């Protein structure tokens, strides 16, 4: 198995899915000639051309809506948000259109689209560039929300998201892009909606996602030294969980603590 950076794993997923399906295209700011603000789309413009790797103007609402419209008639867009902070400008298109098309058309339309980009705490970026917004999107019916922590999950979940027939909101870890991990080559799919017990334990369950997973694993190590066996459950999917793995794990240990990377007000942790 190859060891790849988180950003390289995402790049591999994009390249493989675009190779497999000509309906997939990527649109966003700096994704083409600049090779991606975080280099996730490195090399893709040369490989797939300018109709499939599209440098958008700084018009988050506009190009996000353009992606939604293309998905309504069968294309499979991937819309890159340079960061999720900027996507607040695009929220109307994600929430009022993408999420609701299936419902308000009474099942006539589907919207196979992925909105992806970095979120979570940044480094010395102050108030506007350092937010964990995933729980906001988890609130809306019609969206799947994912936040992988490891390079392997990043690749497998992005591939699954692109093949999904629903709008998927994907939070990548802004400070995870350079992190390395083993990533299976080729057809590696991680189904959406399934949490992953990354460490087994019997006394307490720590529920986490994205970058906080690494801190939770450290905490579990610390607890082990103190004689407490902690389970670490990586949710990976925050909205539309297919199984009740969170409930099962918590029932086993009866105590849970959740670790969102920002404000806990209205976080996924406060949801049923």
């Amino acid at each position: 198995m190859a060891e790849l950076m988180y950003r390289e794993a995402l790049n591999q997923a994009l390249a493989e899915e675009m190779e497999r399906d000509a309906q997939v295209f990527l649109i966003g700011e700096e994704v083409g000639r600049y090779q991606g603000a975080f280099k996730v789309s490195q090399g893709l413009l040369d490989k797939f051309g300018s109709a499939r790797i599209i440098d958008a103007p700084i018009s988050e609402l506009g190009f996000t809506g353009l992606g939604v419209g293309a998905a309504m008639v069968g294309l499979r867009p991937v819309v890159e948000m340079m960061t999720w902070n900027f996507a607040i400008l695009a929220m109307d298109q994600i929430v009022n259109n993408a999420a609701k098309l299936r419902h308000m058309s009474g099942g006539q339309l589907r919207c196979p689209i992925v909105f992806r980009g970095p979120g979570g705490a940044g480094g010395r970026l102050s108030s506007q560039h350092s937010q964990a917004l995933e729980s906001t999107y988890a609130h809306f019916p019609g969206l799947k929300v994912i936040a992988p922590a490891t390079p392997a999950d990043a690749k497998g979940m992005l591939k699954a998201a692109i093949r999904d027939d629903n709008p998927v909101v994907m939070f990548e870890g802004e400070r995870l892009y350079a992190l390395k991990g083993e990533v299976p080559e080729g057809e590696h799919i991680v189904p959406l909606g399934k949490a992953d017990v990354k460490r087994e334990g019997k006394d307490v369950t720590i529920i986490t996602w994205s970058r906080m997973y690494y801190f939770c694993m450290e905490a579990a190590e610390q607890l082990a030294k103190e004689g407490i066996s902690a389970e670490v459950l990586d949710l990976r999917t925050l909205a539309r969980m297919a199984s009740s793995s969170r409930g099962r794990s918590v029932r086993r240990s009866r105590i849970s603590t959740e670790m969102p990377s920002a404000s806990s007000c209205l976080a996924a942790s406060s949801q049923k």
Partner: protein
Amino acid sequence: MASAYSKDLLLTMYRKMYLMRRFEERTQQQYGLGKIAGFCHLYIGQEAVAVGINEAIRPDDYMLSGYRDHAQPLARGSHPGMIMAELFGRTGGYSKGKGGSMHVFDIEHHFYGGYGIVGGQIPLAAGMAFASRYRNEDRITVCYFGDAAANQGAFHETFNMAAKWKLPVLYVCENNRYGMGTAIARVSAEPEIHKRGAAYNMRHEAVDGMDALKMYEAVKDAAAYIRAGKGPVLMEANTYRFRGHSVVDPATYRSKDEVEEERKNDPIPRLMHYALNKKLAKEADFEAIEAEVKAQVDEAVKFADESPEPALDELWRDTIVEEGEPDVRPRERVLGAKVDKWPSYPSGKELKVTWDLEPRAQADKADKAAGLKG
């Protein structure tokens, strides 16, 4: 002078406009009876716009609209009873009653919905047009929006992209002069909306939206231009709604005289007089159409009345597409009809994308002009 139009075209247009008018009048009546609730916006007065556009484009061209959206699908050939049932919130509606007045969707007739956030459909239309260009189809997208939508960011952001990438889309601003109760001139530095197209190097023009034939001519020409790959067009259809913003709006912000004056331009008698003057049709032709349409609208109300209320568990259905779940074809679901015109596209394996959206030489030149590269 002889007419450039056939009797068939004129009577088809008349029939459709008359259907829209009677349908909307009955909608208002049914609202008063409490069978329709929620926000409900009538098209009365604006019929020439929808019919002129529809007759000038292809049935497989995409279309989408704002929330004043009952009439455009009627022009496309949607089932009036199923639209009325949708307004009633019944299962026999196009969206099983979950869309209601503001969200009519009839994909079989390439009508991709009404949208309730002002201007929210403008970027969608660019995306649909993008898809046609991406697949090398010669289909165009027609997007309706109101004058007030022209002050939304979505309008400006989208026009910039649509023009820069020459997307095959016709944007029709139905300027009925009021965004709800606010006159467009009160809140717009440039109330002639079409002029804003100039800022994006986009073809733009104003049309008399109270004249079905002028709309028809203008759209024929614009559609040919767009289909030829020359880029998007912004068309401002100057029109007027004879009723309030919605059925509950008494429209006290405008004078009775103004409304009376505008009623003289009623597009429906205007088309009839044209056909009579040109001796292309007789009064009996119109009388026959009116009788047929009245019966059709009676039938639509009856259909909606008889359609069942949705079950409570429908509420959460259609939020997420489950794996392998097909799309719902409304006429098949409701009427048991065979639907064979459902949109279909080449698979991701068959599709060959040949479009070079931004040729490298062009990008290099722009970079060089900006002093970025030697």
